[in-house]
């Protein structure tokens, strides 16, 4: 079974759960012996912190053999993959960005690239080539409201490249992760006639509430209807797909995410500037409407009415960051709320080790891998009932995101009663060990097999 997989981010350079999920899933598929060709949009900005880029030499070496003139890189990774090949297509695609940010980003990239390019190559020919490149990137000086057009172009550039690549590959099924890859997936499917699975990790309704971006909704809708099968990450998401996108229930299967076991055990801390008798409640995720950071703050204020030796750590960035910082100040709890920015690697390990409780107050969370990682690091978790992961976890605390009173009640209980924390940690860590990617990969394989038989 050969799988042509279209994704948009991959560790170590990720901005959210999607990259983690793609990594875990493909790794498990690899172990199952499925041949996966993984196609990624490669962002041009190599200094960016929040998304895929050319993988660093230590972890993989680039073969430098361009598969076609359109600069599709075949990337060789020397870590755990044996049946998987990676292709990166230059593109500006990034998950989780706003129109304004997107516009600004393109301009920066173009500017920086120009300078670098001229410096490296030197001479007039380089300038000519650069102009050519600008034309390729196809940016018109646009005002607000043109964002859709730009994204659309980008998605189609990715699609065109993916089709060109697909023509040279041999595979049985196409598997596409989330809306940015759907145009490419539809194009590949129509050119090759192979069955298509779209994997829905989140929908526009999760990200934007009722204020959906019509263009994104349309792409999602088209992708779901073009697909032979849809994989939803939870029943919650499955219900949205059925009710909001008008897809038949029989077409949608639920495959829960897993978690990779890599948590380190907790250590004593006295070197991190927060005293040991001070408790830490952690929010870790993008600071956006979807993740419910304001409910976290409202609960924090209530907690501080009863408990004093506690700090609330908000780890992540996002478009609501400034609003949330201001909100904390207005509530008069600014000194109790710490913002760390986006964390990864050692810093991430450290913040998990310090935390007494991880809180995910998401307004709408299709799945939510982060709580699994917290459990993996021996941190008890409190999650909103409006999350897919609540369907698979039992040894956690659950609360409706809007019920800040109850959220505070439970946070206080964890801080106040060590036996609660102990029991949650023990059982939670045990439970999370059972949620493996292998199970998810196995289920995907079954879905592929059914589809191939049908076609």
């Amino acid at each position, binding site marked *: 079974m050969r799988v042509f997989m279209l994704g948009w981010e991959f560790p170590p350079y990720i901005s959210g759960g999607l990259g983690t999920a793609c990594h875990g899933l493909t790794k498990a598929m690899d172990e199952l012996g499925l041949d996966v060709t993984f196609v990624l949009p490669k962002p041009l900005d190599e200094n960016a912190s929040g998304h895929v880029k050319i993988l660093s030499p230590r972890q993989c070496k680039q073969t430098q053999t361009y598969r076609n003139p359109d600069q599709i890189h075949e990337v060789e990774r020397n870590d755990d993959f044996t049946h998987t090949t990676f292709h990166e297509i230059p593109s500006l695609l990034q998950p989780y960005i706003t129109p304004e940010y997107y516009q600004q980003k393109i301009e920066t990239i173009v500017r920086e690239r120009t300078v670098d390019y001229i410096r490296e190559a030197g001479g007039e020919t380089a300038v000519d080539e650069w102009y050519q490149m600008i034309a390729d990137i196809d940016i018109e000086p646009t005002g607000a409201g043109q964002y859709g057009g730009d994204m659309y172009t980008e998605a189609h550039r990715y699609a065109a490249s993916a089709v060109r690549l697909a023509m040279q590959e041999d595979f049985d099924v196409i598997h596409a992760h989330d809306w940015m890859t759907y145009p490419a997936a539809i194009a590949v499917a129509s050119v090759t006639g192979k069955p298509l699975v779209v994997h829905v990790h989140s929908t526009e309704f999760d990200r934007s509430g009722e204020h959906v971006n019509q263009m994104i909704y349309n792409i999602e809708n088209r992708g779901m209807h073009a697909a032979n099968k849809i994989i939803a990450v939870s029943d919650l998401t499955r219900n949205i797909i059925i009710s909001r996108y008008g897809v038949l229930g029989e077409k949608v299967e639920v495959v829960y995410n897993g978690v990779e076991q890599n948590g380190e055990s907790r250590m004593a801390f006295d070197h991190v500037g927060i005293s040991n008798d001070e408790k830490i409640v952690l929010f870790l995720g993008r600071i956006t409407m979807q993740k419910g950071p304001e409910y976290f703050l409202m609960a924090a204020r*209530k907690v501080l*009415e*009863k408990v004093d030796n506690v700090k609330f750590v908000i780890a992540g960035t996002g478009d609501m960051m400034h609003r949330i910082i201001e909100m904390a100040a207005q509530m008069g709890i600014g000194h109790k709320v710490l913002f760390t920015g986006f964390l990864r690697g050692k810093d991430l390990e450290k913040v998990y080790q310090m935390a007494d409780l991880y809180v995910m107050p998401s307004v709408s969370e299709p799945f939510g891998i982060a709580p699994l990682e917290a459990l993996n690091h021996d941190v008890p978790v409190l999650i909103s009932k409006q999350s897919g992961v609540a369907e698979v976890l*039992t*040894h*956690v*605390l*659950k609360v409706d995101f809007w019920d800040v*009173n*109850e959220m*505070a*009640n*439970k946070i*206080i*209980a964890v801080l*106040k*009663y060590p*036996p*609660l924390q*102990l*029991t*949650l940690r023990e*059982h939670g860590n045990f*439970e999370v060990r059972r949620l493996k990617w292998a199970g998810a990969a196995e289920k995907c394989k079954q879905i592929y097999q059914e589809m191939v038989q049908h076609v």
Partner: protein
Amino acid sequence: MASVCFYFQVHQPFRLRHYTVFDHTPRYFDEFKNASICRKVASKCYLPSNRLLLEVIRRYEGQFKIAYSITGVVLEQFQKYCPEVMSTFDALAETGCVEFLGETYHHSLSFLYSHSEFIEQINQHTELIRKLYGQTPRVFRNTELIYSNALAETIEKTGRFDAIIAEGADHVLGHRNSNFVYRPSNCDRLKLLLKNYSLSDDIAFRFSNHDWPEFPLTADKFAGWVNRVNGNGQCVNLFMDYETFGEHQWEDTGIFDFMEHLPAEVLKHPDNNFMTPGELVDTYDAVDVVDVPHIISWADTERDLSAWLGNAMQSNALHEVYKIEKLIKQTQNEELLADWRRLQTSDHFYYMCTKYFADGDVHKYFNPYESPYDSYINFMNVLGNLRQRCDQSFSKNKKSLSKTS
């Protein structure tokens, strides 16, 4: 001779209402939920079962006998929420074929934590049974059949009971079986009645199980198993939750028909009869001493305390409850004492059990909480408030004292 001895456990806890750390009102119990569960179980189980057994007792004119152990907390709820259940128990008591057993009024685990509280609750229960049914309980059963040598010694020392009931666990019986009257270790007078868990569970758990090879269980088949005890035992102790009839086994499983026809089938054999626990004690001598140095119970397959004391939350909650015993009693405030005692009911700790939580099973039955963690948080918040009230009561007393002096 095989004497069939039925004892039914009747109990409902006072469930707590949702209580956050921000709540201050000193009302802890969920009136609405308790009333509706009590009425629901009454209509499905208590009322139809009582009516049926009353009829069967009358039909057999003294040959069919049964025993109940009814907790004080469920009797309070019957009086409050469904008094018609009270009158059917009255009628049963008047037949003379029904014995009432003694236990802790609050269905508590007090034996494990406080000797004085344990004795007080037994006395409270004995008084209530005497007042309601004109009987003084002479056979004792501890909450969830929790039992050990130490418990038997304590009960013998009260001088008020002739026998005690326990689970007929294989590991304490060894090669022996539960169909005899025994004596607990270190006891001179007290007798020990052991539950025949195999035949009891055939009715209580397996009756409607289609995968069970013996399904369907009929009255004559069951009577045949009872007959087999003849020659290798004196009694068949069938101890079970009363909610077996109509609630655990729904009416449409045929459980009521089974009970209606069982006496006739059992009595077909001339050597069989029905006895209450007290009659067993009067009729049969203890044949051997059973040594139970470690605590046993009738719960789950483990037959131990792990359903109430299996994790850190449970042991912490229990410890915290009994830690304030002195404080509560010093206040001499009846309301505080009553609230504190209702918090001792074992169900509160059972709800905190994490043992089979992920699998979803019998432990979820009637559990008012979404998770064991929620139940612990709720319980600890209530206990925190109760403690505060104790402290306030003291400072008030001090103030009034200083005013008078």
